[in-house]
């Protein structure tokens, strides 16, 4: 495989075409897996590479696959999470548009490893046009024999169905995604049972993020050791860091896991525009607690970010410049969670809407610093008490804004 093949994101214009992908050594990793490896050896290789889920939670992909029960006659499914709704996140969009065959090849390898014959790609509704190339890629791969009843001439078959959501952030949560895919409201299921044992249509199901699956071919092509070596000890490979907000070059940067946050922002994305400085940074999508400007010398891997009190999440970095009122940031955040709560459990449904009410009062006159304590109490009432991780995802960033910028918020309220 050419050196080019090690990068997930080629930047030439026709990179999304099958022909261009094949030129870079595309589908050779799938061929290797299907023709020279046993499924369990593929799972073992991916386990060793320690590729952690790129959708947000960071669960190791190989381990997740190994939870699917062996044997049994019924169907099992692969669901690709292309719901990409976490604010500040726009990386999967790039994979769908620039490297759809890397995703499809990763799906072939995954399905082979787990014994799956049907896969769904759940694309957020707002990406209906963005996913046009993906759908073309599926058709191209099928007619060239990289998907369909006899993948690469073997007796392994895989059908891929592209499914469109209809506007609901919560459908990115894996069990809400399953509900939605089955034609219901996207409201999370109680776990356990986990999707690996009872998932789509009550069958064992693997759910992975677009970027996670698109990176799988690299592991098979170059080996687990190589992949792990590109990241840090318990978090292998490269990540697609999306940088937006106050930087000179917003965009996606594919860099080693563990690259320092400051370096991503200042070197790769060009730092803040002339005359501006960094006030705060959201390091991993809006659910990730905000870091102050003096907290960004942190390696961008799951464990390091967790130690710093935040999370790597979807690796969507939002740079907040000096002069931004944090009350505005708090308002955008509170409004988002109040709007997107699916309403299934009380602490989240009521808590997020009360927090928004309190924040609105702070923005009008009539609020007082005591409202900040009320917001913290409400956030505490949500955290750890909800059916799905959305609750924590709402409570943690709100708490971080209020505690880290308390002085500023009090001054703003007093005025």
């Amino acid at each position, binding site marked *: 495989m050419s050196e080019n093949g090690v990068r997930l994101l080629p930047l030439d214009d026709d990179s999304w075409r099958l022909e261009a992908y094949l030129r870079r050594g595309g589908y050779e990793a799938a061929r290797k897996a299907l023709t020279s490896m046993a499924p369990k050896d593929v799972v073992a290789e991916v386990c060793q590479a320690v590729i952690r889920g790129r959708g947000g939670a960071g669960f190791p992909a190989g381990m997740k696959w190994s939870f699917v029960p062996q044997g049994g006659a019924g169907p099992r499914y692969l669901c690709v999470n292309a719901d990409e709704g976490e*604010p500040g*996140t726009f990386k999967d969009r790039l994979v769908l548009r620039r490297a759809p065959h890397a995703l499809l090849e990763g799906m072939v390898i995954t399905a082979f490893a787990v014994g799956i014959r049907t896969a769904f790609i759940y694309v957020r509704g707002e990406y209906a*046009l963005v996913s046009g190339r993906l759908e073309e890629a599926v058709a191209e791969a099928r007619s060239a024999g990289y998907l369909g009843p006899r993948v690469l001439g073997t007796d392994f078959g895989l059908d891929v169905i592209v499914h469109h959501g*209809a506007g609901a952030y919560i459908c990115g949560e894996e069990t809400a995604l399953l509900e*939605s895919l*089955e*034609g219901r*409201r996207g409201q999370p299921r109680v776990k356990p049972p986990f999707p690996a044992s009872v998932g789509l249509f009550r069958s064992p199901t693997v759910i992975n993020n677009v970027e996670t699956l698109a990176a799988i071919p690299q592991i098979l092509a170059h080996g687990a050791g190589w992949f792990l070596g590109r990241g840090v000890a318990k978090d292998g490979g490269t990540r697609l860091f999306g940088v937006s*907000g106050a930087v000179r070059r917003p965009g996606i940067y594919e860099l080693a896991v563990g690259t320092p946050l400051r370096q991503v922002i200042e070197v790769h994305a060009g730092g803040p525009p002339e005359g501006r400085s960094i006030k705060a940074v959201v390091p991993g999508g809006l659910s990730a607690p905000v870091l102050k400007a003096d907290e960004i010398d942190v390696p961008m891997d799951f464990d390091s970010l967790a130690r710093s009190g935040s999370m790597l999440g979807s690796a*969507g970095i939002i740079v907040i410049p000096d002069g931004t009122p944090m009350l505005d940031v708090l308002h955008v955040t509170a409004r988002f969670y109040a709007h997107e709560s699916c309403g299934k459990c009380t602490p989240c449904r009521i808590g997020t809407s009360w927090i928004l009410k309190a924040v609105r009062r702070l923005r009008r006159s009539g609020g007082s610093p005591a409202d900040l304590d009320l917001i913290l109490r409400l956030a505490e009432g949500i955290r750890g008490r909800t059916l799905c991780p959305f609750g924590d995802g709402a409570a943690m960033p709100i708490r971080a804004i209020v505690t880290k910028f308390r002085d500023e918020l009090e001054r703003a309220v007093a005025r």
Partner: protein
Amino acid sequence: MSYAPSPAALEKIEGTIALYPEKPAALLPVLHIIQGESGFISAAAEAWAAAKLGLRPVRVREVLSFYTMFRRAPAGRTTLQVCRNLSCALAGADDILGLIREKLGIGPGETTSDGAVTLVTAECLGHCDHAPCLQVDGVDHGPVTRETVAALIEELKAHV
């Protein structure tokens, strides 16, 4: 009032249903096809979809009321979706939204009286590196400025 999809839409609907191991799973795609053709999902279309997929009507209503992209009433000829989440807010989304409200004379969730434009807000369109951004009938625009937005609105108003 009754509903029947066009022959082309019906063919698409039947092809779609056949893809899924269980019929009800085709509900979202079927609703997308109906809305794509009719612009919205009428009560009659709702009943039709329920019957087609063997679902109780309430199951379809539940779904329609949950997802923001489905419409149960006709909308304007063009739908303008303006993102107001953090990356866009930092880039001036509030100002852009204010300008659009002023030019159209309507707020989010409303349609201009001539039926030209429906305005809605969005929570991150996944185009944050092009903030502030918006979608015009699903097509991404960004980064937009006061000038490009003003020109866009004139174009939409003129387009009948």
